[in-house]
């Protein structure tokens, strides 16, 4: 088979084993990915994921929504078509607040979701790991660790033995 290796995938029965395996693999300098049916606390650090941009993105989205919202109201009511409505001032800022507030939240929420998906590279309907039938259990009750060939490459036999030591139930080679 000529296809490039995606990684070495190992199945674990519990989150604790996966966590331990991930930490150990990281210590051995592996590039790795971990898969679990629910968010396992500490797993992200274990796979070396540290900086999370979600809050910033959300804040910017909110800022944009808020300023844009008020700006739109002010422009349309004061600049573009000033009309005397019930003797109220053109720039009735107190009355502009509810819409501004709503738009702030809308902007923030959209930014959070879109940002999250984008950062996660989703949607991605195809993935090499899906080729492995047992990987379906990643969304049910099994925990998976995938050692990626970094620029150093992957010493398959060594990796296999390492994973078995960590208590892997089964091991597969995933190809691109």
């Amino acid at each position: 088979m000529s296809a490039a290796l995606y990684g070495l995938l190992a199945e674990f029965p519990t989150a604790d084993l996966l966590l331990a395996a991930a930490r150990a693999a990281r210590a051995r300098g592996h590039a790795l990915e971990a898969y679990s049916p629910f968010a396992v606390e500490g797993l992200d650090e274990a796979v070396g994921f540290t900086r999370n941009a979600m809050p910033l993105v959300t804040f910017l989205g909110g800022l944009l929504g808020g300023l844009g919202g008020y700006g739109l109201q002010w422009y349309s009511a004061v600049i573009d078509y000033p009309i005397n409505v019930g003797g109220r001032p053109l720039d009735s800022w107190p009355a502009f607040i509810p819409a501004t507030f709503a738009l702030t939240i809308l902007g923030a929420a959209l930014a959070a979701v879109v940002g999250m998906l984008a950062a996660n590279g989703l949607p991605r309907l195809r993935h090499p790991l899906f080729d492995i039938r047992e990987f379906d259990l990643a969304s049910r009750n099994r925990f998976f660790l995938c050692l990626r060939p970094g620029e150093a490459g992957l010493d398959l036999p060594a990796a296999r033995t390492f994973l078995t030591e960590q208590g892997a139930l089964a091991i597969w080679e995933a190809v691109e």
Partner: protein
Amino acid sequence: MASRTQPPVSRDIGVLKAGWRYASISDKIADTVLSRPTGWPGWLLFLATFAGTLAFFGATAWLFAVGVGIWGVNIPVAWGYAIGNFVWWIGIGHAGTFISAVLYLLRQRWRTSINRFAESMTLFAAGIAGLFPILHLGRPWFFYWLIPYPDVMNVWPQWRSPLVWDFFAIATYLTVSLLFWYVGLIPDLATLRDRAATPFKRYAYGLAALGWRGEARHWARYEHAYLLLAGLATPLVVLVHSVVSLDFAVGNTPGYHSTIFPPYFVAGALFSGFAMVLTLAIPLRRFFGLEDFITGKHLEYAAKVVLATSWIVLYSYGAEIFTAFYSGDEFEVAIVMDRWTGAYAPVYWAMLACNVGVPQLLWWRRVRRSVPALFVISLLVNLGMWMERFLIVVSSLHHDFMPSAWGMFYPTFWDWAFLFGSIAFFVWLFLVFLRLLPAISIAEMRLLVRESAEEGR
């Protein structure tokens, strides 16, 4: 006893019964959607509500053809059932987001197994609520004039109108609730994708799951985004019903023009919202055998919230009356007197009975733990809240400033058609949801299994 190498087994922690594992709990919930047959009662209910839904849209067609004159609305009572229903539904559409957002921030574990269907309830209720202001327009086909866009007329929405605020608040609320709900669904959709038996289902759920794999980094960002959404949704819960209340409070009509309205409406919303949660949860757990996940504890907590909010509502009623007499404003006083003794007084007293009287039964633990009692009470509360909306809208208008212009509102057949039609539509949507999506968050239940097991360590 759970070990590092053995998958954990849940213990009874009140909000989750014992003996569940990752696999079993995943299969149990997923299979209610994937493989569990509907059964004849389900079909019966489905067809009945579907007929009601068709009736609802038929009535809408007739409404557009003939005009809002088919309702009982008139001058002075220019707003009738449509707006009452709108406020009622939007109120019901509150508990969902409150449960999933606020209880999430407060780390309430009993939230886990009810947030999913509560959110769905929210979506459907808010969606139906959003329909009514449009149906109620004299020229509904121009509703989009509330949206600011550069048109050939060079005119804009009138930003000082609470209806415009409404539009933005509700649009935002719907969008954010939808996002929140959907984001929560993604891992479960992946589960369904991976368990689905037929290619079609795999495709459908696969598309919806966006290729979710449960990678650790994804989970990290996911959790963060979810937390942020919860944080954003929380003020929204307050905003929406406050703005809805401003539709009235900003008006100068006696009975509308009151500063108590925003908190009053929010409390009322939670009140009716939790009542509706009970109304839905009780048959749900029964028919799908989910008693292990939606336990008596859940019902009891919800009941307590109902009891608490009923007191806030009572306080608001009192505040209204107090301000009327304390201010000595003759028009406000006249409205209060009219509510007590006027043409709509029976509705007023019935409303008090349902919203204030009945919930007091929940002081007794026996009542809180009796499922049938809770069910009846929740229905009565919903009825009472509808009557409250009706009174706010109609009775205030029919007796305002000029006695020469006083009038009565009498509902027509079509008024009732739209009320019951919308209820049927709501139930129908909810049934469809139950058959297509997991009513309980599978991923979070797995986590709960783990936590409950570790507590046992």
